[in-house]
């Protein structure tokens, strides 16, 4: 229910320790199960991820991956209803009227007000009728009363993940409810939930300077690849989402052979393998659509955009680069650590401690990692410094990376932190479950985590200089700044405009 922006982050587990502890099982229908036994407390974190994100949407249904994620909390043929057979008849009628209404509204100025009013009236009547059969919120209530925590879901550009933590004696309840959802989901109350999604967009994008800047920045950076489309969808996309589109997406992508299940916590591995077999084993595998074939064309010059918002200035800079398993992606992970991990990092020492910016951070791998992505830098200037000053200070640091070899000491510190991160990550069931699911889906194998650590140790100062020179170039970058709406008029701008 929240929109996720996951990133490749360094962190996770002493390598050998992890390799020994992860148990993997693949079922005949293609479902992959990863498990870690941890008996610290009688709790368990079962996560399920589908390799179905906003990149997989067709052009007439942007926002449907996220919308479907919301709809999958509405119950099944037996949960959330008192009489599915009769409810279904009404739901089908709602779809028909809803579609007519959406299409009429989409005409904008040319729409017929009387038709809209009539359709709205009849939709309202049908919704009231459907409500007689619905048991709203039952699906979530079951989890709640059994003591769940962290019951949620998230949609990213690359995938959708369903999360919960339960007392460990409730694992079978989870298996039963989740498999029922996969087999028998009913996407009831669609149009009401669509209103909630519109409010989500208004909250997280349209009323938030950071959300707005991010959305516009991505749209500018990607011209062809679907990574440039917001996960939640543009307002006009959301306005035309319907149950049929959601069901189509569900049937196409929510297949056992397109999913990864991760269970970490107080479990018995053998029993768990059988339990999952019992509930999920009979879901058939199915052919999957092709991966996204569109490639973002090479950028042919700097792109700069301004985003007007009633807020203080911010800055985003992005450089196109390849994703995993390209070696340069690993090098950029290292570069990101050098630039902005901790108080010894270069951005912190040279930009934040010099009062040029209140924050300056780099992230390798936005907005996703299944396809070639961006190395992104976010910063907020510290007044009286401007985004221009901050930009200059950032580029100065990138130039140093291009021209001066990184010192041994810096590498050593980062590698030590990577190893410590590996160990610390093992202390949370939920954290481990999320990381394993993420890397398995992005890299095709959770062992990427182990390989990643190895690669980090192989990186040389020359690699850093070469990669910095390859990607950190003006023609390869997109720069977005948040500016105030009011326009400063001077003689210069007046003359410029009057030309």
């Amino acid at each position, binding site marked *: 229910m929240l929109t996720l922006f996951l990133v490749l982050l360094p962190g996770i587990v002493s390598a050998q320790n992890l390799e020994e502890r992860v148990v993997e099982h693949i079922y005949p229908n293609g479902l992959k199960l990863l498990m870690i036994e941890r008996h*610290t407390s*009688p*709790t368990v974190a079962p996560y399920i991820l589908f390799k179905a994100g906003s990149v997989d949407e067709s052009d007439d249904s942007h926002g449907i991956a996220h919308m479907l994620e919301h709809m999958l*909390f509405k119950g099944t043929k037996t949960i959330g209803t008192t009489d599915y057979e009769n409810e279904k008849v009404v739901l089908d009628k709602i779809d028909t009227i809803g579609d007519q209404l959406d299409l009429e509204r989409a005409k904008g100025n040319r729409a017929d007000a009387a038709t809209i009013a009539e359709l709205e009236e009849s939709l309202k009547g049908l919704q009231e009728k459907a409500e007689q059969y619905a048991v*709203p*919120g*039952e699906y979530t*209530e079951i989890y*709640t*009363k*059994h*003591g769940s925590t962290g*019951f949620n879901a998230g949609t990213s550009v690359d995938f959708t993940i369903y999360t919960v*933590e339960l*007392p460990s*004696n*409730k694992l*079978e309840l989870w298996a*039963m*409810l989740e498999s*029922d959802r996969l087999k028998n989901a009913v996407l009831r*109350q669609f149009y*009401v*939930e669509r*209103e*909630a999604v*519109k*409010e*989500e967009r208004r*909250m997280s994008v*349209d*009323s*938030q300077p950071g959300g707005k800047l991010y959305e516009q920045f991505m749209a500018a950076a990607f011209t062809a690849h679907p990574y440039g489309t917001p996960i939640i969808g543009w307002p006009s996309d959301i306005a035309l989402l319907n149950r049929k589109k959601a069901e189509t997406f569900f049937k196409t992508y929510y297949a056992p052979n397109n999913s990864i299940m991760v269970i970490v916590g107080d479990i018995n591995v053998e029993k768990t393998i059988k339990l999952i077999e019992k509930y999920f084993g009979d879901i058939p595998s199915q052919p999957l659509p092709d991966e996204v074939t569109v490639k973002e064309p090479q950028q042919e010059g700097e792109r700069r955009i301004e985003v007007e918002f009633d*807020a*203080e*200035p911010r800055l985003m800079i992005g450089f196109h680069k390849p994703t995993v398993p390209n070696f340069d992606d690993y090098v950029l992970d290292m570069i990101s650590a050098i630039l902005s991990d*901790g*108080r*010894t990092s270069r951005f912190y020492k040279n930009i934040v*401690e010099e*009062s040029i910016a*209140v924050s300056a951070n780099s992230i390798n791998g936005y907005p996703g990692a299944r396809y070639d992505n961006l190395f992104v830098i976010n910063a*907020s200037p510290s*007044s009286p*410094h401007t985004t*221009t000053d901050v930009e200059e200070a950032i580029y100065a640091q990138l130039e140093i990376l291009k021209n001066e070899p990184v010192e041994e000491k810096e590498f050593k*510190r980062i590698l030590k932190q990577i190893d*410590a991160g590996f160990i610390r990550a093992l*202390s*949370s069931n939920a954290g481990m479950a999320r990381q394993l699911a993420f890397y398995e889906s992005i890299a095709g194998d959770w062992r990427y985590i182990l390989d990643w650590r190895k690669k980090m140790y192989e990186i040389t100062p020359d690699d850093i200089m070469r990669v910095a020179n390859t990607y950190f170039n003006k023609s390869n970058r997109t720069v977005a700044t948040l*500016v105030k709406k009011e326009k*400063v*008029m*001077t*003689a210069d*701008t*007046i*003359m*410029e405009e*009057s030309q």
Partner: protein
Amino acid sequence: MNYLMTKRLFLGLLTVTMIVLSSLPILARPHDELTYEPIQFTPPVPEVRKLSNGMTLYLLEDHELPVFDINGIVKTGTIYDPIDKIGLASICASVMRSGGTVSREPDVLNEELESMAASVEVGMSPEYGSVSLSTMAEDIEKGLEIFADVLRNPAFRQEKLDLRKQQAIEAIRRRNDNPIQLAWRNFSAILYGKEHPFGWYSEIETVESITVEDLKAFHSKYYHPNNIMLSITGDFETEQLINQLESVFAGWIMNDIDYPDIPAVEVSYKPSVNHIQKDLPQTTMLIGHLGIKRTPDFPDFFALSVMNDILGEGGFTSRLMKQVREKHGLAYMVGSLMQTSLYTNPGEWFAYCGSSSEKTAQAMSLIIEIIREMREEPVSDEELQLTKDSLINSFVFGFESSSQIAFQQMILAYREFDPDFLKTYTDNIAKVTAEDVQAVAEKYLHPDGLTIVTVGNRDNFDRPLSEFGTVNEIAIEQPEPPPTEALPEGTAADLAIGKEIVANVVNALGGIDRLKAVKTVVSDARASMTTPMGRVDVGVVIYQVYPGKLRQNMTTPQGELSFVFDGEAGYIVVPMGAQPLPPEVSRSLKDAVFRDIIPLFIHLTESDASVQFAGNEEINGESTSILLVKQPSGETLRVYISNDTHYVVKYAFRESEQGVIVDKERYYSDYREIGGVKIPYRVDEHVNGNVISESRTTSVKLNIDVDESLFEIPE
């Protein structure tokens, strides 16, 4: 944001053996057939020890992973900020860490910690300070030594205080960016008022007044071993660790702390509706009142927890979520929270919601109706059972990690709760009845005394806010950026020399009486300007009416344009019409008018404005004296006076131009006498070292009649 989303401190504080509760009797469902093995789980109990210096320890060994963590609290808090230095406690905490220690420069400290993948942090909350250490087990000894050094010997280096202050000021400048943060700040300020520290927020002035001495005093007042509790977990051996702690804290002595009196919060339920206008598509609303002081022996604690969970804190199963979001689609984010503080504060109870402008009143009425219902009708058995089951069954998540367990025990002790509180928690929740829930709703919810705060665009609301009460409009004041270069404090000698030089200038220009006789100046000039399109020649007519009015008409190759400034606001006039200049440009114009040589030197002669002598410099082969003067914007103006002619030959100052700070220099020369007053006929302006305009005056007329309508605000 975090504040709103924080789960109540208490969820998860407790108990031991988990029993599975009955399911709800709705319809037969497959999952009702499932049976669950009871969980037998006895969470480990931390060992409580005291060091010889009075520091209290909660120790829990955990050898699963080779890590080591300390999470501690110090009895202090932002509530002890002095009213003229709001922000002191937080800034003290962060500079304790960022400013290094007496023996460790900040860079050295950072390098030592990060090269062993360790961290030491110091933080501040309203009613406690926090300290932490996280390190690999192999580095415990070194980690403890650094941790103790930061706590005991912070150096509070001036440059790190300056940096932190600037960051705090920047945060103040950015605090209106996020509507939730904006609503929250105003909501709590209204509830607590100006009389109580819970209603205080730091302002640029309160932050600017904080000195190194203040930090030292705050640190030495509150950071004493007997005032600190540490929860310690990970891969260590208790006896050895105690010895190490005794050793790193040896010589740090106990000290009695005299806490300032904090006034009791005056609890009242006075309804008010407050609106902050911001052009956003969604309205952020907070609806609530002061909460309930939940003391350790507070009998209604459990019923209140259940009541608020049903109302709005229980996530997707709460009434607010089910009604406002699930049934009506009026919001994505909606719920209620009961904030509890530690000792002195009743906390706040409030509902929160974000609804599109067009649904604002609809959502608000529904929320208020749901609040009323809690008082008027008993909750259903199903709701009650669901909530109790949820609280009891999820209880185990309070014991997921050893650090969580040890920290919880420590916080309970800090709040002076009975340690058995944990053991009886689930039993006490189980005992809550529907009557109890209604009774606490009646007692503690005050739907007729709600404080409402909205942030959004009232022009698009579905119904007027006045429906909910008389609306108090809150204007947001956007703090102006501080000057990039504030005037330093001058010595008595420099100030005296400054005044002497001013007197010389006045004499050279024609004497104070002649200067004061000038009421209007009208001058014609030709200027050559560098623009993005290249060099442009323009004709300029400038009308000045002292004090403060200015109009500048320009004839450019592209047409006519004028700037008008009436002393406060500025306008630009082009053939298509007039429009106001942004406040930033008006501020610059105010400075520009202030810099006009004649009125400036009258001002410096007749007022007690500070004029500092700041040395000599050679300009174009001419020896000059430099004077420092504060402009209306706060920016410093450097005035260069010829030591030979005593004329102004140059100004240097910084200014914001289209959001960019630039260094400007104006060179004055070719002084000629008009009516006994000396006027410079040549002015060259440089920006960041580049010539951007050269202006030659062709005629100057003093004291001719100038039509006042020239300065009127154009239609």
